[in-house]
């Protein structure tokens, strides 16, 4: 059965279509392995029985025209799934069972995919290490006590441990790309407006995007093609002609201009990352691309801007959790007391901290000094990218300033935790597409990633660049299944 687990998503799809493997065989293999992998704590809800039933149903009446025929998927527990518990890894939604389906997951099921279960994440996607989940830390399959990154940490862990052939996450400030980088996998955050936000538990609505997390670039193109669609139910969904990312994927990047932003060379960055970045440039040159030095002068201001904008939006979005219509309720002496106790007991520390930051920056007397200021700096950051894209087709940067760290290493210092997202956050603020691909290992043999940032709606462009680089990098990571022993 090892062989089946080694197949990529695209390979599985073609083997199902050629009738070499059944949906049941695939599903049973992933269910069995997931059951043996509890130590990683990547699942918060298992739907193994229904997955097996659905796979049998698929095999009885297979539709080989589907893009994901009978393929099982475990997904981040931030996507609402009809009649399946959706918690955002928070106590406040511990028993929430949506009566509707998110548009992105509906797109998956429409193409024949089957739900394996819901994956752990940071509470309300607020975190960079999957240490804020109400359901406990997720462990990286790469090493004992190593964080998988966050907030899509359960997704990254399950993907790297081969508990799902591919998965989907959400990315508000790096929550797909940073965990992908930490676990040696591929993760793409699409252009804002590409994937519908309908039915995704909201964190910061002007930044949130869903995206694919996969073993290789080809799978990433395939899954993005299924996920991305215009959706009238999301007022910021954009109606543009979406290419066939998968069939259009190619390695012809000759003559493409790739920018290297000098501001991403930050103090204290390990030499291995510097080296990786240099190698990346060489690979691109080998493929016929042209390397151009560029400047994104406001890069350093992106994180503080993000930590005003995102909590402000979160404090508004999370106002809905009041214990009245759904979710956890604590008893109180009166209505206000009920609200205060419900939110105090229902939210974890990081979520409360961000609600309070957001409430403060939006409060009377501080709005101009913080929120308005941040919106203006956000404009400057976007202008930086607009200027850069007059000169280049895409931008190459490291994905993260370090490799994965141990559980507990950064959880007591919020600012040092926030610094993890220094290279990914500017992309969300500017609404651009970005992809992280595995590019090498550090001295502890922990994975490191490179990020390619594209022009708005040029997912195809960054996928093609990633596809070309992937071949040259030839990344290999041996995961020895230590958690099953």
């Amino acid at each position, binding site marked *: 059965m090892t062989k089946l687990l080694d197949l990529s998503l695209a390979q599985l799809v073609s083997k199902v279509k050629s009738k070499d493997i059944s949906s049941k065989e695939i599903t049973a293999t992933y269910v069995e392995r997931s059951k043996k992998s509890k130590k990683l704590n990547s699942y918060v809800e298992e739907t193994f029985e229904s997955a097996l039933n659905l796979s049998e149903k698929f095999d009885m009446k297979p539709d080989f025209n589907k893009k994901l025929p009978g393929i099982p998927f475990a997904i981040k527990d931030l996507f609402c799934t009809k009649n399946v518990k959706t918690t955002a890894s928070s106590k406040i939604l511990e*028993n929430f*069972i949506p*009566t509707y389906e998110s548009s992105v997951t509906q797109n998956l099921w429409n193409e024949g995919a089957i739900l394996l279960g819901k994956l752990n994440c940071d509470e309300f996607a607020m975190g960079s290490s999957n240490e804020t989940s109400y359901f406990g830390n997720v462990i990286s399959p790469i090493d004992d006590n190593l964080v998988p990154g966050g907030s899509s940490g359960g997704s990254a862990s399950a993907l790297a441990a081969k508990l799902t052939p591919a998965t989907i996450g959400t990315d508000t400030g790096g929550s797909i790309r940073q965990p992908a980088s930490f676990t040696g996998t591929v993760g793409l955050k699409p252009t*804002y*407006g590409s994937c519908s936000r309908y039915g995704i538990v909201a964190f910061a609505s*002007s930044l949130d995007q869903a995206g694919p997390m996969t073993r290789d670039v080809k799978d990433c193109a395939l899954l993005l093609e299924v996920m991305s669609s215009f959706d*009238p139910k999301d*007022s*910021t969904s*954009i109606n543009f002609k979406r290419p066939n990312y998968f069939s259009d994927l190619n390695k012809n990047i000759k003559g493409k201009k790739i920018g290297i932003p000098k501001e991403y060379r930050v103090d204290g960055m390990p030499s291995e990352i510097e080296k990786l970045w240099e190698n990346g440039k060489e690979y691109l040159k080998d493929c016929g691309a042209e390397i151009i030095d560029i400047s994104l002068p*406001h890069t350093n*201001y992106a994180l*503080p*801007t993000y*930590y*005003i904008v995102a909590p402000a939006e979160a*404090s508004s979005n999370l106002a809905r959790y*009041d*214990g*009245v*219509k*759904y*979710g*956890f*309720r604590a008893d*109180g*002496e*009166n*209505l*206000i*007391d*009920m*609200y*205060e*106790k419900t*939110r*105090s007991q229902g939210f974890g520390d990081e979520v*409360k*901290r961000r*609600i*309070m*930051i957001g*409430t*403060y920056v939006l*409060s009377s007397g501080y709005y101009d*000094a*913080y929120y308005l*200021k*941040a*919106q*203006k*700096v*956000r*404009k*400057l950051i*976007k202008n930086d990218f607009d200027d850069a894209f007059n000169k280049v087709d895409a931008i190459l940067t490291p994905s993260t300033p370090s490799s994965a760290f141990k559980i507990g290493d950064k959880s007591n210092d*919020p*600012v040092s935790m926030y610094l993890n997202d220094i290279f990914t956050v500017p992309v969300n603020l*500017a*609404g651009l597409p970005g992809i992280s691909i595995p590019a090498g290992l550090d001295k502890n043999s922990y994975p490191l990633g490179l990020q390619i940032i594209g022009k708005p709606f040029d997912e195809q462009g960054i996928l093609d660049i990633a596809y070309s680089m992937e071949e040259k990098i030839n990344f290999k990571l041996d995961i020895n299944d230590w958690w099953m022993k």
Partner: protein
Amino acid sequence: MSIDLKTVKHISKLSRISIDDQKAKKLEKDLNSIFKWIEQLNQLNTDKVEPLTSIAETTLRFRKDQIESKNIREDILKNSPKDNKDYFVVPKVVE
């Protein structure tokens, strides 16, 4: 600009999150370190910069004013924390 304990308690009130004194003290420390770091934004002169309010530069679409979800009372009440088939139940509001 530093945030004192009184401000922390005021924000917690505005946020409708009750906190005890020990938590308030911890938050005072955390929030001060976060805002000290955030204040580097003041190095930038943004007097002539327009705020970016939406990344998608589109005007909101209109849709037909028609009901699409019908007979969903049960669905809506399904996750209500206090059982009642007709209403959401809350603590007494009017004396």
